[in-house]
């Protein structure tokens, strides 16, 4: 796929966008009250502690909403593809917009269990997700 916009990396977001180098999905977590939060910011949104840091997750998630995009929005875009909002299983309250891969659009449903798989482009590791159940994969 040649259409591939990439995010601008900042000190706050670096662990999220580059953490996939060792295959680990990292989400910001408060070191004081243990709350997980996303997007990454330099302050805990719950207790306002400044002691926050990226922490490793299992990379497992659950589909909360999805949309199969059919419209080619750019000339060099391959369609269809499945967009989803997933909740990260061991980071309560954290959801990610992502693209699902290795799955037929008709097999996607709210509640589908997925796991992270990183797409490496330049310095970025985009956290995409695929079904955990091998039988659901295509």
């Amino acid at each position, binding site marked *: 796929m040649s*259409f*591939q*916009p*990439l*995010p*601008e990396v900042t000190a706050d*977001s670096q662990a999220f966008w580059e953490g996939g180098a060792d295959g680990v999905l990292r989400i910001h977590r408060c070191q004081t009250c243990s709350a997980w939060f*996303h*997007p990454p910011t330099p302050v805990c949104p719950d207790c306002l502690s400044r002691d926050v840091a990226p922490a490793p997750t299992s990379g497992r998630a659950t589909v*909360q*909403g*999805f*949309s*199969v*995009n*059919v*419209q080619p*929005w*750019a*000339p060099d*875009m391959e369609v269809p*593809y499945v*967009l*989803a*909002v997933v909740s990260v299983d061991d980071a309560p*309250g*954290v*959801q*990610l*917009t*992502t*693209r699902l891969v290795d799955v037929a*659009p008709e097999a996607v*449903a*709210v509640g589908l269990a997925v796991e992270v798989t990183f797409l490496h482009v330049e310095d*970025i590791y*985009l956290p*995409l997700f695929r079904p955990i159940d091998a039988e659901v994969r295509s």
Partner: protein
Amino acid sequence: MSRYLGQRIGERDAVISGIGRSAVGRKLGRTGLSLTVDAALQAIEDAGLSRDDIDGLSTYPGVATASPGMSPNGVHDVQDALRLKLNWFSGGSETPAQLGAVMNAVAAVSAGLANHVLVFRTVTESSAQTATRRASVVGSGGDRVAGIMQWMVPFHAVSAANWVGVYAQRYMHEFGLTREQLGQIPLNQRRHAGLYEQAIFRDPLTMEDYLGARMISTPLGLYDCDIPCDGSCAVIVSRADASPDLKQVVRVEAIGSALTGRNSWDQRSDLTETAAHDCAAMMWARTDLTVDDVDTAQLYDGFSFLTITWLEALGFFPKGEAGPWLEAGESRIGVGGQVPLNTNGGQLSGGRLHGYGYLYEACAQLRGEAVGRQVEGAEVAVVGAGGGPLGGCMLLTSDR
């Protein structure tokens, strides 16, 4: 309710004293400034004012270069073209969605910073659109993506059709909404476009047409998406007591400008609720009127599903019950129905004037000037614009 108890409701110091609307259509081949001037001068004249009375200027979102035709004009060129002598002005996008510019004007008038504020919104998205350059799609330029868009665009969630599609799919999963029920929204708007000569798409639309149209981003098909257009709307927000010769005014009963949930398309814990819910709660807390008093609703339909979120947020039906409520079709949301909705064809059939078409139509209805589509005795109108984390709503009343 107690949040505003005893507090001055400042928006009641302001009125909408004049309205203007340029030609609106597909590829009009005119500059944005030309359309803006048409709408602005019409609004000033409609208010019974002259150019020299205008001492405030407000617009959304200011000049936007990232998205073609999204907003070709801002405060700078309009102030200069009309040589306005301003005491106050504001233009920008970080407001309670599109109507934020109107709310800013109301606040300025209430604060005594200006007497008559010209508010405008201009789009040339139709003219700007080419085979390779599409309006309202982010990330095709090659630059790195920052801000809120970085969490969606790299995954190819590039259009609001994608972001809204996720919400619509979740609502269907949760509450059993069907595409036929959702389709009542575009069918309704098309019926109303047929009553309004200024609407863009006026040919009848059937449920068969709707269901048979190509998919864009599930569950949203072609007719669930609004249409880029060229056009400009303007209103004059005046101090209620500023001018003795204000002809006919629309009163601002209450504003909803809240953002109490996450400022994000994907972090809301309930993926069927949006900023519309925050705004609606605030607006109703600032008035003794209730949803039962609303004579007509002009609610954002950039995508059909967004209208459902506005209707639900405002309390027209209980949470989750959009489907059965909409099934009544014309008798529910038609001009003669229980809640006459988007009586000008909305953005789905009237063109994406990006929030300001609803405002113009609400004023026309309250003034009894909505020829061919007038809601009998309309005295209270609600206007809501935006989707996802963007939202703003206003309750307007006639001066009768």
